[in-house]
């Protein structure tokens, strides 16, 4: 298992009560595993079926392998402008 930090923003940060949380996932984890781990935490019910994930400040459209050292973030529906 490895520990990964996940950045949270806006409504997600509010629901989890934190702007970042750490989850334990297998070494060969994907972004989908990270989402599943988050969903089991208090506040995890806020997440939609397939929340948008960004890795190293880029959107990832389908599950990708993730590892410690990457900047992993969950992106609520954006509302800029």
């Amino acid at each position, binding site marked *: 298992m490895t520990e990964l930090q996940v950045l949270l923003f806006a409504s997600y940060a509010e629901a989890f009560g934190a702007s970042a949380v750490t989850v334990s996932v297998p070494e060969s984890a994907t972004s989908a595993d990270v989402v599943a781990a988050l969903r089991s935490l208090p506040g995890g019910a806020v997440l939609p079926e397939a929340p948008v994930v960004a890795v190293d*400040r880029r959107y990832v459209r389908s599950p990708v392998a993730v590892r410690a050292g990457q900047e992993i973030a969950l992106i609520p529906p954006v*509302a800029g402008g």
Partner: protein
Amino acid sequence: MIRCAIVTTPIDPAALLAEVTTPSTGATTLFLGTVRDVNDGRAVTGIEYSAYTAMALDEMERITQEATQRFEGIRIVIEHRVGILLLQEVSVAIAVAHARRAPAMDASRFAIEELKRRVPVWKQEHYVDGDRHWIDPTAMQTTTGASS
């Protein structure tokens, strides 16, 4: 010429116009998003904008790079403000200049549409009754009127 910024102080539209306009440009466009008093039928007192700043900057850079490829020769500056904004304050400004008007106008539109679609910025509306609501442009309007 490209510049993108996330700012915490009031945006100065005149400064952006001066920044993109040169003796070689003939058309300058400016788009401003401002806080308005009513959304979805509820009286708004202000909006709190927040951002994933590092990624928002990267995404804005990518959008302006794409705009430069589509509309060759543009000069473009985008500033998005975060924090609590009151009615009529400017949340986003996009200034574009070009020798001719069509690329300047097309690039401005491209940039704001992409910004709204992709840049990780969020807003929480504050209402007269003290309530607050995260805006989700992807949500369908609900019967409670709480979504927009």
